[in-house]
Structures are given as structure tokens and as C-alpha cells.
């Protein structure tokens, strides 16, 4: 690179391990992927953000006043973290799940009894889902009481509300998948509410269920919604949400 990156090279008195590591991180392949050295200078710290797609949602520098826990309670970050946990556990669970009755229920039993760590993953997925509904809602309250929705962040608030709705829908569609009594009747009650919409309620319900009552069609519909459609939607909206957070002035800072 250039003369500024002094720390690419090990000092002569460094140990073997350090020299090997330095050799590795100094190699062209490594530097084609990570465009900064060991984080020692502010330049490296800045480059970590600039040159890293995952960290680039943050600015290089943030206000110190926004850092304390009580400012944001980390609620937005936790919601994202929960979404990541849910994605990982969800993909793993899909490996042992067949969206058909009564196989779906039997798969739950098999996860519990014969799949290594199956019940742990299912627990993680379910409790994370419940927790995510709570954190997203609390995040909204925090933003409201901080007044952080005011111009120029109006639209990001709207995106946030849409994310809340999507989170609820994700949780709701996932509720049916174990195909047990709890799932079946919770979804029956839930979709009956949709049926109360004037004029088109029954049609909405019919389309949602893929029939007049909850059955195999409903299961596969909810499965596709839960695993493909809604996650895609939520990822797109999240991207917009985070991008706007940066564009509209960065981390929580009451105007």
C-alpha cells in the first residue's frame, strides 16, 4: 500500500507467531480482503468502518454522548441481533421440517427426541421470536419518548412502524408451523379477526388460509410467508432503516 501503514511489518525482535501472523496479514490476498492493518491507529479504526460492509452502517465517529446504555438501551441493536439469531436458527430448523400435516408435528417431536440439540435450537428460535416482538415495541417507545422521529427522521419512523408490523406478522406466521393445538387455534382466532374486515374480509381470510379452514394449504402458505416473503421484506426495510439512520444524523440524538 503506502508508507502510512507502518504496522504491516513486524519488528525484528517479535516472536515467531507474531511474525507468521504479520506475514499472513501482509500478504496480497489478505490485503485484498481486509483493507486495514491491525487496529492501532485512528486511521485503521476509520478504515475498519469505511472498508467493511457490515460496519459501514456506522459512521467513523460517533458522539460520545450517544454511547451510554441508558441513551438507547441498545434496543434497535438487540432487535437486529435477535433477527440474526432467528435467521440462523430458522435456517437450521428448516433442515428438519416438512410443512405438511401431520408431518410438521411429528418433526417437532423428532426435534425434541432424536435430533442433536434440536430442542435447544427450537427453544432459541421461539424465545428469540417472542423477545424480538418486545424489543421492537420497546425500541419504538424509546424513539417516541426521545422525540427521535422528528424531522428529518419522519420517514424512518414510518419504516420503523412497518418493521414492527412485519415483525408481528413473522411471529404470527411462525406460530402455526409446529401444527399443534396451540398453533392451530391461535391462528384460527387470529385469522378470524382478519375476516372481520368489511366487504373483503372473507376474501382476505380465504386467500390467507388457502381455503375456508386451516389446513395443508394454510400451512404451506404460512411457511412460505414465514421463511421467504416476510424475511425478504424485513431485510429490505431494515437496510432502508439503517441507511436512513446514518443519513438523518446518526445515532440517537435528541434534537
Amino acid at each position: 500500500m503506502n508508507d502510512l501503514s507502518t504496522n504491516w511489518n513486524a519488528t525484528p525482535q517479535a516472536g515467531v507467531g507474531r511474525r507468521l501472523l504479520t506475514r499472513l496479514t501482509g500478504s496480497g490476498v489478505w490485503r485484498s480482503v481486509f483493507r486495514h492493518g491491525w487496529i492501532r491507529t485512528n486511521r485503521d479504526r476509520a478504515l475498519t468502518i469505511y472498508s467493511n460492509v457490515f460496519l459501514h452502517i456506522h459512521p467513523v465517529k460517533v458522539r460520545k454522548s450517544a454511547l451510554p446504555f441508558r441513551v438507547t438501551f441498545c434496543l434497535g441493536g438487540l432487535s437486529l441481533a435477535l433477527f440474526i439469531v432467528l435467521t440462523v436458527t430458522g435456517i437450521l430448523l428448516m433442515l428438519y421440517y416438512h410443512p405438511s400435516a401431520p408431518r410438521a408435528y411429528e418433526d417437532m417431536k423428532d426435534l425434541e427426541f432424536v435430533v442433536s440439540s434440536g430442542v435447544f435450537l427450537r427453544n432459541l428460535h421461539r424465545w428469540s421470536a417472542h423477545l424480538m416482538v418486545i424489543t421492537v415495541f420497546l425500541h419504538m417507545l424509546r424513539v417516541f419518548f426521545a422525540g427521535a422521529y422528528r424531522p428529518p427522521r419522519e420517514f424512518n419512523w414510518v419504516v420503523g412502524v412497518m418493521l414492527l408490523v412485519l415483525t408481528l406478522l413473522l411471529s404470527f406466521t411462525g406460530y402455526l408451523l409446529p401444527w399443534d393445538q396451540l398453533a392451530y387455534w391461535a391462528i384460527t382466532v387470529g385469522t378470524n379477526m382478519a375476516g372481520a374486515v368489511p366487504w373483503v374480509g372473507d376474501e382476505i381470510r380465504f386467500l390467507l388460509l388457502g381455503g375456508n379452514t386451516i389446513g395443508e394449504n394454510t400451512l404451506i402458505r404460512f411457511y412460505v410467508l414465514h421463511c421467504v416473503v416476510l424475511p425478504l421484506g424485513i431485510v429490505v426495510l431494515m437496510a432502508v432503516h439503517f441507511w436512513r439512520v446514518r443519513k438523518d444524523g446518526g445515532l440517537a440524538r435528541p434534537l
Partner: protein
Amino acid sequence: MKNEVLAKFDDRNDPHGITRRRFFMGIGAGALGATASGGTVVFMQYLEPNVLFEPPTKHVVGVPEDYPITSVVSHPSIRVYVVRTPRGFFALSAICTHLGCITRWNEQAGQIQCPCHGSRFDSSGRVLAGPAPRPLDHLLISLADDGRLVVDVAVVVDPEYVLRV
């Protein structure tokens, strides 16, 4: 003021800070690494099914009297030919050794033929023509206690193996 602030955050200006910070960083990163590698192990265990829902490999194919001497009888559902020669019984896999198509027994030609790429085998599985690289697999056939023939499609045996009844 700017320099003071920056100086505070630059490790190179605080030797004690560096060691303690490095120590904690090491523990944190180590624990993260351990979590990742442990997670990989658990993940691999999760991927490996502990029970299988697969049909049994042993199939009953009737009694010896069902087979005339010198005959080839096809059992399409289990992809096996049961061949009876004057020497005894043997079982042939119906799966072509070329690319795994299911072969057919042609009664007129007295050949086992593969519909995909034209491989031909004789009634003891030897390649007569076509791209098949080796003879058809011979499978384990045995006589159960109740006098019925049993083929185990999971066990490949020597082509010389013959069950005498």
C-alpha cells in the same frame, strides 16, 4: 485539546493500558473463537441425523419354488433380478454400472439392457456391450428360517457367490 483527546485513545501512548487491554481482548477473542469452534461441532452433530426413515434393505422375494430353473425374474420395486441357474440362486442389482439408470430384462434377447446409453449385460451381469465399465453388482441372497428367499440390497457379494437350495 484535540491532541489530548486523541492521545488518550492511542494505545501507543499508554503502555500499561496496552497490556491490560490486550489481556482482556485476548480473553474475549479467545472465548469467541472457542464458541465458534464449539458451535461448529454442535452444528455438525445437528446436521447428522440420529434416526433414519428409510425402507429396510432386506426384502423377501418369495420361496424358491416360485422360480423355474434357469430363469431371470425382475423385482422392479426393489431394483433386483433374482436369477436361478442349475447351480443355484443369485441376485443382481438392476442399477446400471454406467450412470445408474434402471436396466430392464429383455426376455427375447436374453439380455439385461440399459435404456439410457445402450449398455447390455448377460443374465449373470457381465457386460456384453455399451459404455458400462463393470458387471452388474451381485447382491446377498439368503434363505430365511421360514424357507423364504431374502435379498439384502445393501450387501454386494462376490460374483461367484451362489445360493444352493
